[in-house]
């Protein structure tokens, strides 16, 4: 699964431009399940279990990542852009990016610190003042390499470091995609439906259509969620903690989760010796936002990989937590489908 996460994270796929991720996933699940691509670009897959399921369970992960999109080229050949998804300018200034299908290298420049007035020190440039420098001599040269609407992704390779940690762009939610692929490629006890969805980062849009189409009894959203176990953070301020297993959500900014599923997930983890933890802060949101209110309502559970610095070029998580998430997803899928 590690190799697959590495390959998935390296693919460019901002919201609305998930095609390379979709092709990769299809290449991995083809022959292991029935699948279709819907009108929005979601992959909906049906995997036969050893036995038919008495309840329809949907397992979801999103294919898209946060990034940027080219909105203009100025008279000196600098690229203007808008963020796609929630990206704090503080984590992108001074970073390397790749623009468009050709992967044109560029950088987010900044006025040198030497030329900043004392009272402006530490001020981050306004979003409208940000730009990408691809080294073009002028507007005409830039236009040969870049077109309006081109996508922009972080240039941030996959690194294994520390005690079992990985670093990459787009761990949110390619790690979740890898978990789903891995389950599809294995034998499962009961029939199950899987959705690899588009456009989560711009408002959980793909999942709305996918959930309507699948019409599940239960849904499990497999995500990457904020771990704030950094610096001097203690206790619940950490939200969730790398190395302490699968994070289970009771509430976030998008969803009040089924108390029943939340309790059953924690019980299952305890019973089976799977490392799990509470997500201890009502923050963020994910595809559950769309799925839980689909049609007449869907009991939904979110199981997440604790991930530091999400929505930055350097997401960091612990590989063993991904294994814990996978184990709990499998256990819950089995219990809910039975």
């Amino acid at each position, binding site marked *: 699964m590690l190799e697959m996460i590495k390959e998935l994270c390296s693919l460019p796929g901002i919201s609305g431009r998930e095609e390379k991720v979709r092709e990769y996933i299809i290449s991995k699940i083809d022959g292991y399940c029935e699948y279709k691509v819907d009108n929005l670009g979601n992959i909906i897959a049906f995997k036969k279990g050893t036995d038919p399921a008495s309840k329809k369970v949907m397992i979801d992960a999103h294919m898209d990542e946060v990034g940027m999109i080219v909105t203009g080229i*100025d008279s*000196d050949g*600098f690229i203007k852009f808008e963020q796609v998804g*929630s*990206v*704090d300018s*503080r*984590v*992108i*200034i*001074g*970073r*390397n990016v790749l623009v468009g299908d050709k992967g*044109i*290298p560029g*950088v*987010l*420049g*900044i*006025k*040198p*610190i*030497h*030329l900043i007035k004392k009272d402006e*020190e*530490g*001020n*981050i440039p*306004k979003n409208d*003042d940000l730009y990408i*420098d*691809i*080294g*073009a*001599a002028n507007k005409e*040269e830039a236009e040969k*390499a870049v077109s309006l609407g081109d996508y922009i992704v972080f*240039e941030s390779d996959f*690194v294994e*470091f*520390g*005690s*079992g*940690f990985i*670093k990459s762009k787009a761990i949110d939610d390619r790690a979740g995609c890898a978990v789903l692929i891995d389950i599809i490629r294995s034998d499962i006890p009961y029939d199950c439906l899987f959705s690899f969805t588009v456009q989560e980062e711009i408002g959980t849009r793909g999942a709305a259509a996918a959930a309507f189409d699948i019409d599940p009894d239960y849904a499990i959203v497999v995500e990457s969620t*904020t771990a*704030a176990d*950094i*610096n*001097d*953070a203690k206790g619940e301020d950490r939200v969730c903690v790398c190395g302490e297993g699968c994070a289970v959500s009771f509430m976030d900014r998008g969803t009040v989760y089924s108390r029943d599923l939340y309790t059953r997930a924690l019980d299952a983890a305890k019973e089976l010796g799977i490392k799990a933890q509470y997500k201890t802060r009502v*923050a*963020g949101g994910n595809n559950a936002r769309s799925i839980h209110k689909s049609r007449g309502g869907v009991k939904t559970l979110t199981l997440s990989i604790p991930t*530091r*610095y*999400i929505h*930055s*070029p*350097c997401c960091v998580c*612990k590989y063993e937590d991904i294994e814990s998430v996978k184990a709990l997803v499998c256990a819950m899928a089995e219990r809910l489908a039975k």
Partner: protein
Amino acid sequence: MEFKEVRELLEALCSADGTSGQENCAADTAEKLLAEFMPVSRDALGSVMGRKGEGKGIILDAHIDQIGLVVTGINENGFIKVAKVGGADIRVLTAAQVTIHGKKDIFGVITSVPPHLADEKDEGKALPFDKITIDAGMSKAELAEIVTPGDRITFNGPFDSLMGSRIVSPCVDDRAGVAAILRCLQLLKDKNTCPIEVMFSCQEETGGSGAAAGSFSTLSDEAIATDVSFASAPGVSKEKYRSLGDGALIGFAPSLDYEMSRKLTAIAKERGIKAAPEIMGGSTGTNCDDIQIARGGIKTALISIPIRNMHTAVEVADLSDIEETAKLMAAYIEERSKEYA
């Protein structure tokens, strides 16, 4: 490939780390490259010193150190606390990737706050420096085996080719100057010149101690230092600063030797070397300031290479400007050699 020689030199120099006071790796690389042209040595502070010929001639200087961070401690949760080495820019630290040069080199990420947890009142403000820590994915105990206070930290970043002859890398300041001097020596290789003394000075970013001590050991009465300067970019005025691709920037400043600056300008014009004046109102904020007042005083000139995003991990330069700087230094040495002969 355009500017093949300069590109090779710069890429080799940028791939070796060397924060102020711990320049070993970059200095080793520079020393090896310099040794192709002259005998070399290392002085007490760690500057790379080279000399070709006997007696007085011309000193060429570029600084070998780069900005970075230094480990000051490890907190209970295993996050590394740091201080600045030189003028690291607080606005570009969060989410940067770094290498910690401990007992072995290890990878780390500078911590940041995801938008989901960010406090609205902090919007538009860089995280204060005391909140900057490094995540190396290890516990305090694990880190203590590898990392010691005083260990240096450098910013990671690819050496990428941008469009045309432009490149980006974390330590173009001042490996571009070192590359220009080495390229100048290539251009002069089969020529008879006056004595040349080369200093790849350490500790420029922390105040210029390397150049001060280094130039004391030289003999010559004139020096050319080459460093990077600001290139125009959004927010950096085109009227006040020169652009990438404008060539060698010849410094004119009260502290610089006016005759040398004028001679460099005349030679550039004569030989068709692309150059432009860069005017400063006092001293220069470069090694020139220390070289000028070393010993009983040394006549000093400055040639700058324009770069964008100085003191970030994405310093952008145009290889053509480095090549022109090398050509101008070589031409100056050729011309002056006639007078030394």
